[in-house]
């Protein structure tokens, strides 16, 4: 018993080290993108999309990795944020420092109401209801097609402004998105180490025991759901402004599946893993789908394979390799 405990302790120390290295590499790679894509603006746009995907992945990992609640409809909040921000920019003002906070407040209110019912359910019911929520948001686009544009999508979102200055240049956009991502990653790590993060982890490991030691599990789950939904909506809002349009595809359950794939591919609960997963996946998707149009087959097949072969995700597999390598090196030294 004590052996296995010691083993898990070293593993987690190795995890921390791997995470730190990965964070530094990701931050450096991300920051260097505008330098070498100067002559290829298309790559910069692809990189910006990868960064948005990374923010969504991070938002889902805040829920899945913290409290262990599995959302199969995270695209609901992503799409909600995109449509709401797009509409607000179109109808009110293109100032992003007004429309984005507006979206966040609206998301917090709605996610609290819906989350209040959702988080009281057990794992499976929660998963099913989140999938249904995704379909409902999808349906909402068509119910309100007078406002949302229905099948055609929301077109003609004006060029957004920050402090009254129009944001047009792709590299400026990239820095904004990248800044949001970095801030979100650092905030996530901070939360993970704070008492709140510890309480969330306790709920993931054993909800009943967490309740017995006096944690208010209901409110804590709700908080994690709302935080996660809000970050996803922020990513959606940024996407709508960046892209200048939003379509109902954003709310498709395939989109939810993609977000889930980012997290599973990267490793649930590792924070940096889903970010890497999202970036790798978005770029791979772009190139693979330009070669073949049966992308869904490869996607689904790969998804199944990852769950069976590497349930800890690529990052989990890598860091266990790393720790095995580290252990054998230490063994050789002693």
């Amino acid at each position: 018993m004590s052996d296995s405990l010691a083993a898990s302790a070293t593993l987690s120390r190795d995890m921390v080290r791997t995470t730190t290295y990965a964070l530094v590499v990701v931050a450096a790679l991300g920051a260097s993108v505008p330098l070498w894509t100067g002559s290829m603006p298309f790559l910069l746009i692809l990189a910006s999309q990868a960064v948005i995907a990374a923010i969504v992945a991070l938002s889902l990992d805040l829920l899945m990795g913290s409290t262990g609640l599995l959302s199969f409809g995270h695209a609901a909040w992503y799409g909600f944020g995109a449509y709401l921000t797009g509409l607000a920019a179109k109808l009110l003002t293109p100032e992003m420092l007004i429309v984005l906070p507006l979206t966040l407040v609206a998301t917090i209110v709605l996610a609290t109401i819906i989350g209040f019912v959702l988080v009281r359910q057990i794992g499976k019911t929660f998963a099913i209801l989140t999938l249904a929520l995704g379909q409902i948001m999808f349906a909402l686009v068509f119910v309100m097609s007078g406002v949302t544009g229905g099948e055609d999508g929301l077109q003609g979102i004006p060029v957004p402004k920050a402090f009254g200055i129009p944001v047009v240049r792709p590299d400026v956009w990239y820095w904004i998105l990248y800044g949001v991502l970095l801030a979100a990653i650092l905030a996530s790590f901070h939360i993970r180490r704070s008492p709140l993060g510890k309480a969330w982890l306790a709920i993931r490991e054993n909800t009943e025991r967490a309740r017995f030691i006096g944690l208010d599990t209901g409110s804590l789950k709700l908080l994690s759901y709302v935080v996660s939904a809000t970050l996803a909506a922020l990513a959606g809002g940024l996407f709508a402004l960046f892209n200048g349009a939003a379509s109902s595809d954003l709310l498709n359950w395939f989109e939810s599946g993609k977000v889930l794939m980012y997290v599973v591919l990267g490793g649930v609960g590792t924070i940096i893993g889903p970010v890497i997963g999202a970036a790798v996946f978005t770029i791979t998707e772009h190139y693979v789908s330009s070669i073949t149009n049966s992308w869904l087959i490869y996607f689904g097949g790969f998804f199944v394979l990852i769950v069976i072969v590497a349930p800890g995700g690529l990052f989990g597999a890598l860091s266990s390799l790393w720790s095995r390598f580290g252990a054998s090196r230490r063994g050789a030294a002693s």
Partner: protein
Amino acid sequence: MLAASLALNGLVMGSVLLLFSLGLTLIYGVGRIVNFAHGAFFSLGAMAGIWLANSGLPFWAALLIAPIGVGLLGVLLDWAVFARIRDRPMVDSLLLTFGLALLITGVLYELGGRNVQILAIPSALQGVVDIGAIKLPMYRVFLSLLAILLTIALLLFLKNSDWGLRVRAANDDPEMGACLGIDRENLMHSVVGVSAALAAVSGVVGAPIFTAYAAVGDKILILAFMTVILGGLGSLRGAIVAAYVVGLITVFGEGYFGGQLALMLLFVLVMAMLINWPRGFFGEGRTE
């Protein structure tokens, strides 16, 4: 008049939902798997019906062959895929079936599932039945009767056969069942097979009404999920009552407000109900 006609159509819809969600309940009861790929089995059944009909086979043959084929595929999938994650946490089974749903949908898209096709109704079932002053297409009557008959047959089989005894034992307490010598692997193979075949039957008989394309099962999957939640996850009689409730709500909602709004209405009702009765109509839903 409209209301009466909608009520009848709601019963038809409820019967299809019943047949479809029974498979979902069965696979959940024995394997504790929430099968997100159940809708894909429905689409597969519908598409298989079209392929068989296009190759010149009569409707009845398609109705027999497609479910058997899909059922065998279910057995194969359980043996090759589900068996790999039998003892993993619940999260993995959800993710796995979700990936499987995407995979099957992707394959169907490549096999002609991009176009919406309609399965022709056999000549024996064409025509209209007069029920009082309301006219209901003969095919819909047949559809409901078939669904109800299959449901009763399955329930009787579960109650009286040796296989049914094993299924019920594994449903109540899988570990105790295993201790008493029930081979869980073989049982799961057969349960997934039967469940997939049930989804495929509903797909084939639904194809003349709901049409057939790669993602046709998505909507009915959501409705079936609402059904099993309303009835309580894993509760058979809950599922039976809930299927008709959901069927009626959907058809009335579509009749008066349009399809998308009906779906939202249903979702709000389910959420409202979950606040007070999280374990379904009969309080039998599992909470683990």
